[in-house]
């Protein structure tokens, strides 16, 4: 029979899987709520999920390919950039939403108990739904350009996990810092923008000198995006070294993020 122990937060266990399992329905309901509310009273509805990457693809193609002549590893630029955006949109959306989730739900935090991590996990869950929608759009592009998926498709799900872990880990830090320090809210869009330029979304990885690949791998989004291109748009795979480094970074972010978040969790209701 359930035994609940109320204790000071520094004594909390890092990840209470049992508790998260008990609250699994709340996780699903929170994801459902995020998705449902987004489409209320809109005319376009769910289509917004694919409209945004579509418009960005068009914009980037015009500016970076037609006007600036950006190389794209032999792939048609629209396909190339959408292949990158598929993964990037997932990272950016889950990161921004999860980081802001605690402060956004102040009214919940101060009145009811549930594992706060669920808010961040639900953000990642909603982003996953979007990912699947954009994948549908990408498949249309692939058909249009007559490009078949490569064997890299097998690495796509691990790459999504890598991206999810990175986003989640980073947002654990930021969500916990956002509560007492509202500056974080102003920083988030800026950080996301910088992160995008640090990842090979608009430009190919081959544009950068390969001898520093270990450094690039410190940003797991690089490996995630590259794997997405390898799987769907005909790009080269990331090296095994990069994959390992990125996995290490992602794991570090998750573990350290959990540690920090759990320590601060108990004070959210007071400071938010």
């Amino acid at each position, binding site marked *: 029979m359930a035994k609940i122990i109320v204790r000071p937060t520094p004594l909390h266990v890092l990840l209470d899987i049992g508790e998260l399992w008990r609250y699994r329905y*709340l996780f699903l309901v929170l994801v459902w709520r995020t998705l449902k509310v987004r489409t209320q*009273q809109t005319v376009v509805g769910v289509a917004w999920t694919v409209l945004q990457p579509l418009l960005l693809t068009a914009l980037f193609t015009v500016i970076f390919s037609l006007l600036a002549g950006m190389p794209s590893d032999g792939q048609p630029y629209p396909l190339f950039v959408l292949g990158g955006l598929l993964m990037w949109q997932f990272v950016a959306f889950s990161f921004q939403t999860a980081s802001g989730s605690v402060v956004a739900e102040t*009214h919940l935090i101060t009145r*009811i108990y549930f594992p706060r991590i669920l808010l961040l996990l639900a953000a990642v869950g909603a982003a996953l739904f979007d990912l699947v929608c954009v994948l549908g759009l990408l498949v249309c592009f692939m058909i249009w350009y007559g490009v078949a998926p490569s064997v890299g498709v097998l690495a796509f799900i691990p790459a999504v996990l890598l991206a999810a872990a990175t986003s989640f880990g980073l947002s654990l830090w930021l969500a916990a810092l956002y509560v007492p320090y509202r500056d974080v809210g102003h920083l988030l869009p800026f950080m996301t923008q910088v992160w995008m330029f640090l990842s090979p979304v608009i430009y190919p990885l081959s544009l950068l000198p390969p001898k520093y690949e270990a450094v690039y791998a410190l940003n797991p989004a690089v490996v995630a995006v590259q794997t997405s291109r390898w799987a769907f748009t005909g790009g080269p795979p990331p090296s095994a070294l990069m994959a390992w480094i990125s996995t290490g970074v992602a794991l570090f972010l998750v573990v350290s993020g959990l540690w920090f978040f759990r320590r601060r969790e108990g004070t959210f209701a007071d400071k938010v």
Partner: protein
Amino acid sequence: MLGNLLVSPFRRSAPETASTPVAGAIWAIRDVSFEVPAGQVMGVIGRNGSGKSTLLKLLARITSPTEGQAVLSGRVGALLEVGTGFHPDLSGRQNILLNGTMLGMTPRDIQRCEAEIIDFAEIGEFIDTPVKHYSSGMFMRLAFSVAAHLDAEIMLVDEVLAVGDAAFQDKCKLKIRDIAQSGRTILFTSHDMEAVSRICTTAIVLDHGRVVYRGAVDGAVSQYRTLMQAPRTPAPE
């Protein structure tokens, strides 16, 4: 035993990070320690600012203690506020799912009680309209109704829950009394001494964050009345 509640020396300082408290910090509650055996209905009474809400929030895990710990054996239902998580764009029915899940009900529990919840709240045909179109009365009634159908071995109840017009308030108070008599372990807080005497068997009285009385409810009520007559003094350190 089901529904036991054991609170060891319990302190809570506010505001502070959950590490070492700063010198000169104000303790919302201090050295609060008590035990509630299964099935007992205990009142928590005291003046405003005595630490009642903090105590219940701590037990509901909304905020965490600086020191000490509490052990609750059984599922905990916190009826401290109603309508938590209600989203204005979702319908009443959808919000029942959302709010109910947040309170800890499973989708099956909710499905089973849904008709009862709607019936108690007297919402009728409007259950499928977005709640932003509800009157404040309808909103409160629905919110209370969901919370009142929560089934847990330990319940933390704040009487402020009784909402709506006079007729519905009576309904709420009756429901609270039903919950109190259902054999669950209840911690009940209220400023209405009549309600406390009627519903509770024992009570604790808090004053400036400390327990000043623990025992039968009648003694507690008279202790409370004595305290109410004394002038307000600032919190001792």
